């Protein structure tokens, strides 16, 4: 038999390797592996900023379910991004209590300032605008989620300040990892 060079197995993204400890912790938390799915997807998204096809396949392996089941979950929950996002994700609350207090205007202002609409990312990869439903801070409308922080009682000046802080890198980016490319 001719000697054949053994190919290296295709490298996975290594979710399991990089997050071994976190996954082990999750395993202690839940009696079924399937319950790990949402938290594992968050581990992926916090690193990559979005859920790619490759990572979905890895999540399926970790949670012992089919890729279709992972896809079902990823596409159901609105906070899982299925395309890469900017370093700063601006989640504008557009629901009635905020809308009564200028949420629409806030969106128009950001749209004009950044030149992007819903679910779009600026060319420099810094900002993405997403629509969030009620953020539970209705008494302080209008409200926007900037990555993990809830920014309340927004005004033009306040928004300008937040954008400036982001541009200067003073705020924590949306994702920590390396894989945020299409």
């Amino acid at each position, binding site marked *: *038999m001719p*000697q*054949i*060079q*053994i*190919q290296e*197995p*295709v490298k996975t993204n290594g979710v399991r390797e990089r997050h071994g400890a976190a996954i082990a912790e999750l395993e202690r938390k839940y009696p079924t592996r399937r319950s790990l799915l949402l938290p594992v997807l968050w581990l992926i998204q916090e690193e990559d900023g979005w859920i790619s*096809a*490759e990572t*979905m396949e890895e999540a399926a392996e970790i949670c012992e*379910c*089919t*890729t*279709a*089941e*992972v*896809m*079902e979950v990823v*596409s*159901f*929950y*609105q906070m899982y991004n*299925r*395309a890469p996002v900017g370093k700063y994700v601006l989640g504008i609350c*557009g629901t009635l209590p905020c809308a009564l207090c200028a949420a629409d205007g806030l969106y128009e202002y950001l749209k004009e300032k950044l030149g992007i*609409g*819903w*679910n779009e990312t600026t060319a420099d990869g810094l900002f993405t605008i997403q*629509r969030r439903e009620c953020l539970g801070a209705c008494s302080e409308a209008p409200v926007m989620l900037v990555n993990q922080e809830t920014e309340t009682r927004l005004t033009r000046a306040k928004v300008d300040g937040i954008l400036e802080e982001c541009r200067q890198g003073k705020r924590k980016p949306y994702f920590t990892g390396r894989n945020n490319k299409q």
Partner: protein
Amino acid sequence: MTPLNVPPPPDNVTVTVNGAPMQLPKGKNLLQALLDVGHYIPHYCYHPRLSVAGNCRLCLIELEGRPKPEIACNMVVADGLKIRTDSELVDSCRKGMMEFLLINHPLDCPICDRGGECMLQRYSVEYGWGTARTIDPRRRFHKPQFDPLIDIERNRCIMCTRCVRFCDEIAGEHVMGVFGHGNRNYIGTYGNGPVSNPFSGNVIDICPVGCLTSKPFRFKARVWELRQTNTTTRTCNGAVTAWTRAGKLYRVTPPTRRRHGAYTIDEDTDEFISNEARFGTHYANHDDRLTTPMIAAGDGAQMTTSWKSALEAAARALRNAGRGEACFLAGERSTNEEFYLLGRLARGLCRAGHIDWRMRFTSEAAARAAGDALRASDGDLDLLARGAYGATLMIHADLLGTAPDIALRIKEAARAGKTRLALLDARVDEFFGRFADPVYLEQPEALATAVNNLAAALEHGRDEAHAPADGAPLFNHLAQHEQGLIVLGLDAAGGALNPALVPAALRLVQALGAGWQFLAVTAARNARGAVAAGAQSDRLPTGPVTDPEALRSTSELYGAPLEAPEETPAAPELLRRAAAGQFKVLFLHRCDELVHHPQRELIEQALAATETVIAVDIFPSWITRHADIVLPGSLFYENDGTMTDIDGTLQRMSRGDRPRGDAQEEWRILESIAVLMSAARRHKSAQSIFGDLLKAWNAPTLFRLDDLLLDPPSLLPQTNHVLLSRRTRPNFKLILAERGAQPPAQAAPAAGGGLRLLWNMHSQGPDHLGSRSSEFDALHPQPRLELNPADAAALGLADGDWVRLAGGEVYLPVIQLERAIGPLPDEALYQEEAVETPA
């Protein structure tokens, strides 16, 4: 045979429906109970064999005393229940739901393949509005490529999730899913890949609307133009309906009850069939068909001839054969009637002719063991479904690969908790693995020893103290139950069945006691029929050849004197003798299994060494080209007769169309040869041959062949709206169950060095017939070899390499290694409708 205890059916209680009392079985699903008595409730998402989803909301009914309507599919029959199904509220619920389901439907009935079978069409007429109140644009989805055999049109989907539940619950894995959110939900597969399971075609039938349709059937015909023939195939267990027009096969579905396609498949049947039965039968339309008789014209050429001269030539050759010089090989896909007639030809009309069917086995010992196993089979899958077997043990059964339709029924029972499934095998797949506990993995040659150990332990007693050291969970699993089933696979090692396994398994059944039954499974379609109809060397239709009484009664049936044979060689030995030139005539009746036989050289020698080779077949092959007389046979919807399922259920094969060209039904060919061999004409119909068989089996003679058909008119309830299910289908069983005391088995021979080949469905490509079904070809997994990565590394093999295999008596052509990483999902994964932005 002692009858087994079966859990009794539930008692009836009184339910008041629209003010009238009704007797319904307690604890039963209310919707199903009402459907069963002919009280129709419209429904989409409910399906009798799937879990209750309750999402279509069409079966809302009114519970007296409650303001809100409730869905009937999530209620159970309880005493004193008072419901209304005819109130204004119920009517408005149905109207409302129908309107909701249609506001986004494209209303493209003229080009929809579901037309005439669509539940949306039907309910629109019966429960709809009559007018449209919507002027808004309709939701639209991209249309992906999806499955090679299933077409998807998401705009027509009503999100009943039957297909999703079918894949998840019945067919094996959750390969289909609901993606997206809310109003933009859609169904599909991950990355729009194929619906990868061997039963995927059923999603076409259970889809109540035009979302999932059959690609091969697409735009070919309207269902009401087609003739439906309830029949069975020559390849798969269970019944089917063939939908034809002018002899051409358009589609194969589970058996339907109605003769004309005015109702949906989905309402007509609750049975599922494998893709092999559905798509693998499209060979029927292949142009390559043998349509006229042919005889050898010297120098390897063949010429067409008339039936008269072909049959006379065949009869002459058989008449001229000397004592023991005629050998009949009966293909495992022959009907019971053909087996019977072949036996009569061989034994009654030729002088001590030989007959056997066991060509798929490569050694004489394996063939004999298989015969023993089939003769002892008495397990009943209907009893399994009714919960008679507390435990089931499957031994070395690559069931999904060999008999998918049977695999489905066993898994269904395990999933429904009707039996507790255990596995003892060399390889376990997900299909059963998910539902089985305990699961034991053994090297294939050690399986017989393991079974023997288990039997020996049980012979000592059922107390846990007797359990073998390493098999206590399995021992307890079996010992706890008074009634159970042992399933033994005869094909899991290809043709190289370990002969020691059969006596070991039979010993285990014996040790477990009278409540335990046995089922041998094989891919040989009509193996049970071959044994029962006397196409096995050591069997007559009425009993073993060694039994003088059986000889006498069979001789009476044959109308010819019989003598007890000195020896009873099985097919492997017969082939060896043929190759040695010991026969003058070799009669090959539908021998599909020889076309791809691993011992091809042996067969070539046999054909060359025999003076006259007579072949009955439907397609040309290297065998028919070597034959001296070729007699063209018929398809499964052109032929009359019966087949026997692996659990003994008789299935009717019926003639809906006449055979193509000059081809003939096989029973006519065989009977004509018999007549030409100077026997009196005995049979003018398949029914008459079946009558002989019934006499042979001591079955009630009042029973007619047509009783096997699905829809004897007297059984049809007087309503258009009834979903008839498996339970109401007449079921006749053929069980021989001769199980004598078996000698303890010897230890299996040790395997040679190196790797062992575990046979499974992926090891071989489609056969003689399957490869002529172009649709099925697209779906059949490429033959491939699966290797442990460590072994692969040791052999210097990588994914995608090609290897040649030779092992034991199994010899395989080139086989491709499976690629571990499939193609990645395409961009379509993200191409759903753009999310609308807020106003």
